[in-house]
């Protein structure tokens, strides 16, 4: 009789511990995802300044500048995760083109402000990459906990599903072609 009680108590304690461990790991994933957004916002915030600086020197690149401003606007309007991802990719693409095109304007390239912005944007790309790396490590932690032996027994029962790693799109995996 006592043995049965002890066993049941042990199982309940175990479920409690598993649940706490899994939910903590899951919340961390959410936080890591938000941290990526923090860096993406940094990038978006640098764009108006960039557009103003470039306008002064590269008046002929009106189309490109409009593209960037439009990309930024569509990000601010974006609702679902998919829309946001699409908008962020558009920003990445237009930024790449802008910096490639700036090679044609030596005065722009020498401008202090422009150089600083270029550095800031390049650094922000690094930050985005690190934020994604950290996000992946939180996903790995959660997925591992969900699938290793003791916790896996109750993981599914408690309603946890594996999380997804951040993956580059097919477009992003291709090597970059810089067109002048």
């Amino acid at each position: 009789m006592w043995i049965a009680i002890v066993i049941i108590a042990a199982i309940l304690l175990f479920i409690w511990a598993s649940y706490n461990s899994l939910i903590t790991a899951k919340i961390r994933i959410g936080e890591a995802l938000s941290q990526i957004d923090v860096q993406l916002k940094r990038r978006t915030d640098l764009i108006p300044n960039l557009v103003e600086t470039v306008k002064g020197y590269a008046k002929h690149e009106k189309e490109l500048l409009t593209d960037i401003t439009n990309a930024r606007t569509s990000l601010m309007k974006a609702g679902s995760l998919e829309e946001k991802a699409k908008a962020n990719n558009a920003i990445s693409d237009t930024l790449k083109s802008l910096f490639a095109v700036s090679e044609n304007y030596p005065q722009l390239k020498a401008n202090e402000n422009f150089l600083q912005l270029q550095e800031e944007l390049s650094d922000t790309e690094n930050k985005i990459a690190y934020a994604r790396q950290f996000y992946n490590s939180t996903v790995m932690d959660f997925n591992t906990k969900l699938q290793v032996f003791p916790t896996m027994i109750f993981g599914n029962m408690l309603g946890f599903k594996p999380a997804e790693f951040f993956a580059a799109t097919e477009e992003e995996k291709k090597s970059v072609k810089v067109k002048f």
Partner: protein
Amino acid sequence: MNIYSAISANKWKTWLVMSLFIVFITTIAFIFSRALGYGDAFIGVALIFAGISSFGSYYFSDQLVLATVGAQEIEKKDNPELFRIVENLAIGDGIPMPKIYIMNDPSPNAFATGRDPKHAVVCVTTGILDRLNKAELEGVIAHELSHVKNFDTRLMGIVAILVGFVAILAQMFMNNLWWGGGRRDDEERGNSQAIFMIVGIIFAILSPIAASLIQLAISRKREYLADASGALLTRYPEGLASALEKIAKDPRPVRGASNATAHLFIANPFKGKDAGAWFAGLFDTHPPIEDRIRILRNM
């Protein structure tokens, strides 16, 4: 071995050594108290003394060390490249941005301290900034941030308390031996007491050294662990390997370092010591540099 197995190997080795340490301490505390005929209150007092004396240095570890080496805090505008490196690696590790200090010393070295990631500090010498390229500096900073993330300051703080505890126990035992005191009960107890007494004396002499050796062994495992964790963060172990090579080539010791702070640096700040016999290596806070480079390059 790969990055992940290096990390888990060093983690469980730490806990193995810590467990053996606790067993060791329990044993000698038991022997001493039986030898003197005291009860267990004696152990409690020794632990409290050790705890109080070491707790202060652990809690204020960051300020103490920085004051001793004379480092200056920097802002982003003072060294934007260093600032960005630390900032980005902290993002990668998911820890808050630590404070950054630079110490004026031509010897290339770096350390990190702080009781937890919220109160962390990273310090580099001017020597290291001059010598390393960006990838190498990232490797070094990643190693230092790993010490922060792995709560190594806390661990070494606890170990220091235990080592102090052992030293106090040994000292109290020797004092009581010398000055008398202790209860001598009936004959039966007297005989086993004599045996404990002899064993006790041997332990009292050897245990402080043994405790230090254990402390140094733990320190070395944590260094390997920080190497592996740092490599996992940068995903580029060659950066740190190359940095360690450059640091090893420079024979000058770090001027501000002391015995108490030596274990915090990335490489032994008291340079000019060669590997020598294997047992000399037991007294090192850091593993041999050639080993660290080799392990990193095999990841």
